[in-house]
């Protein structure tokens, strides 16, 4: 996806997204200017199979991707309305589906208005490693300024061999 010639207000689409899936590899993906670079999450829905205690989004690997310029997060992985009660980020069907065994590695993310890599709602065996996140939190909005954000609701995550550089210096 290349939206490099568009203004932020013209770019409302997510670069790549999927929801009801497991055992997925995402590799070799590149986007230049998107609303969110990559999104993986499943909202709780009316079908029983879409409830948090019926489906587990597991074994998803995200590696060797290049995400440049996003108006929101570079990667939004896992639903952040964890308990299903967050206003504006929940449905009437309870907590959203959990994830498990998510691996995010060897990615480059650059020029992101919000967080760089956000992994949430992923229970066990998750790793975030060997990523380079540069120029994140450009919009300077509270709670949207992490190079790498894991959580909430993550058990025993490993975060290693990453480099994050905010670059923007607003304090003189």
């Amino acid at each position, binding site marked *: 996806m290349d939206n490099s010639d568009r203004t932020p207000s013209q770019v409302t689409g997510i670069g790549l997204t999927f929801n009801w899936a497991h055992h997925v590899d995402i590799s070799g993906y590149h986007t230049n200017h998107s609303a969110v670079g990559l999104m993986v999450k499943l909202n709780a829905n009316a079908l029983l199979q879409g409830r948090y205690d019926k489906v587990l989004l597991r074994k998803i690997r995200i590696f060797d991707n290049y995400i440049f310029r996003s108006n929101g997060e570079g990667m939004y992985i896992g639903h952040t309305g964890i308990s299903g009660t967050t206003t504006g980020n929940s449905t009437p069907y309870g*907590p959203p589906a959990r994830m498990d065994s998510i691996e995010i590695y060897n990615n480059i993310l650059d020029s992101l208005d919000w967080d760089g890599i956000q992994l949430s709602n992923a229970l066990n065996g998750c790793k975030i490693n060997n990523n380079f996140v540069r120029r994140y939190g450009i919009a300077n909005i509270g709670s949207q300024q992490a190079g790498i954000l894991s959580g909430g*609701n993550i058990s025993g995550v490993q975060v290693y061999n990453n480099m994050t550089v905010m670059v923007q210096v607003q304090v003189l």
Partner: protein
Amino acid sequence: MFGYNTSNVYHNIVDSVRSGSGIEHGAYLKRNSVYPEIVSPLVPVVTGNIFKNAENYAVYTAPNPETTGGSVTGNILSITRTIRWLIIPGLWLIITQ
């Protein structure tokens, strides 16, 4: 990081964490409750990282009772330019361009 059980943060490089509000940490770790699961305490292990230019603490572990044990050891805080060249000369060239 907002999680639970033993969580490891190691061998990362974090440079220039600044918002202008004076509240940004190099690494922030906290255990928070989740419904409907009942989750264990957070045991943070933060070791062997390099933190530079964080406007607040390099490593901040939220002092709530559900965060227990763990360790924060062997991290390099606010290194000099000279040391940075010694450690990652190639990577630093990329950053400054």
